[in-house]
């Protein structure tokens, strides 16, 4: 039984994960303390979303241990896993709202399914959560009628409904206008502080993210390339991070898809 420190909310030790014989994560060691907001960044397909899947128990690592609140997640039985998931909230990339329910019912869903609270109390709680994300008056709209930013805010309200201890965000800023990005960023920080949560954000958006997180974990080739504070990201010399931060087309992540030499292919006719 691996030991864990009281303040460690999430701990991954020597985690390896492959999908259909393709190795994705290759020995990940990561510790996240209670109350921290950390960002996970890296190239596409680099294993960022996989990490979220491992933490939430949707994926099982080939080797290594995944500890959340001291529990060894891959070893949990279905009922225990569900018990743990009541304490974990997840915001999916495009919200994943239930399209057949309106905004109110979407946020009420966790209460109705997981608790025996009377309807009046649920109504109060739902309105509270919706007010926190600024969408209380949109409660009767259907998800199809919401803009991307609004849908994601509703999904956020739904995800924090049961006041989870851990929040996982899968690319929360992708595809949003700058205003919505700012709103979501502010909400993530405020909720994390207000509810005493630990948040893990998988993202590509450097600017917004660097403003809110305590640490940035950069993945490359299935390993943790760097684990540093946001200020260091801006000033570092590391070529991989530089290419990322400055948006350079070529660098450690090559521009050209690997293949034959250009001139010889042209000459082949």
């Amino acid at each position, binding site marked *: 039984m691996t030991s864990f420190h009281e303040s460690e909310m999430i701990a991954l030790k020597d985690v390896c994960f492959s999908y259909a014989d393709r190795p994705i994560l290759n020995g990940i060691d990561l510790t996240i303390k209670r109350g921290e907001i950390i960002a996970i960044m890296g190239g596409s397909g680099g294993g960022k979303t996989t990490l979220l899947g491992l933490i939430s128990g*949707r994926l099982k690592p080939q080797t290594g241990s995944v500890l959340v609140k001291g529990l060894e997640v891959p070893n949990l039985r279905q009922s225990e896993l569900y018990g743990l*998931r009541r304490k974990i*909230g997840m915001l*999916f990339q495009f919200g*994943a709202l*239930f*399209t057949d329910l309106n905004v109110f019912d979407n946020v009420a869903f966790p209460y109705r399914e997981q608790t025996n609270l009377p309807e009046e109390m649920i109504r109060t709680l739902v309105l509270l959560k919706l007010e926190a994300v600024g969408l209380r008056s949109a409660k009767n709209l259907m998800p199809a009628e919401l803009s991307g930013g609004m849908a994601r805010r509703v999904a956020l309200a739904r995800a924090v409904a049961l006041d989870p201890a851990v929040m996982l965000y899968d690319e929360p800023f992708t595809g949003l206008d700058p205003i919505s990005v700012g709103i979501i960023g502010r909400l993530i920080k405020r909720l994390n502080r207000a509810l005493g949560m630990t948040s893990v954000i998988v993202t590509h958006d450097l600017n917004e993210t660097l403003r809110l997180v305590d640490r940035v974990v950069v993945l490359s080739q299935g390993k943790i390339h760097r684990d540093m504070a946001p200020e260091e990201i801006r000033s570092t010399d590391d070529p991989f991070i530089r290419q990322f931060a400055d948006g350079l087309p070529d660098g450690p992540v090559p521009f050209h898809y690997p293949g034959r030499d250009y001139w010889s292919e042209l000459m082949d006719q």
Partner: protein
Amino acid sequence: MRASFVQLISALGHFFTSRIDRLGLAARFAGALLVSLSIALGRLPLMFREVYFSGVRSLSIVAVSGLFVGMVLAVQGYEVLQRYGSAESLGVIVALSLVRELGPVVTALLFAGRASSAVTAEIGLMRATEQLAAMDMMAVDPMSRVVAPRFLAAIFSMPFLAAIFSTAGVIGAWIIGVKLIGIDDGAFWSQMQANVDVRIDVLNGLLKSIVFGTAVGLISVFEGYFAAPTAEGIATATTRTVVISSLSVLLLDLLLTVMMFRGLS
């Protein structure tokens, strides 16, 4: 030459193993579904919602089809029977054909095309938009909340729809046979009642429709659940539901008919 022969054999082998793999997957899925049924049955409003979308919405197509099928049976049946002077047996022929076979089978095929394909698309889309994953993350089992109610709704709706089909068919045949062609109304009904047995014919027909409902229900939720999360994936899954459901219904019909009606004459 030899290489392509080896390729052929391995392709053939792969064809069969992949089919058997999928069958195994379906069996495991069915097992998980069975386990979730106990929870789903405790939440009947969810099932009734699906009965509305699958069953009630299929009512019009089933009733109208039944009416037309009954009418066609009357026309064709009369054409043959009157050659032997047995036109009065029209009621019997039509009723038995409908109650024993056409009612359960055609209803199941119509249901597969209309309601089941919609269920597959719906579940496939829920998977593609991560709604099932979100539910799972909120510690709500998608099997009992989404899949099982739709499965149960198919089993529940089918017998009612088959009965409605057969009834519409008999009425259609009556309209053509008695009202238009002029067969004796009394003979139409009395011959029918004398020769259609509630236990052997009507009940067995309803039993068939329950079996079909189970098969079609299972196939539609399975294909939707494992659909690839792309537009193409959902389209493929939907067509698979209709094709496999239809073939299964026809195969099961053969087996059930032999079991139920073989020893009658």
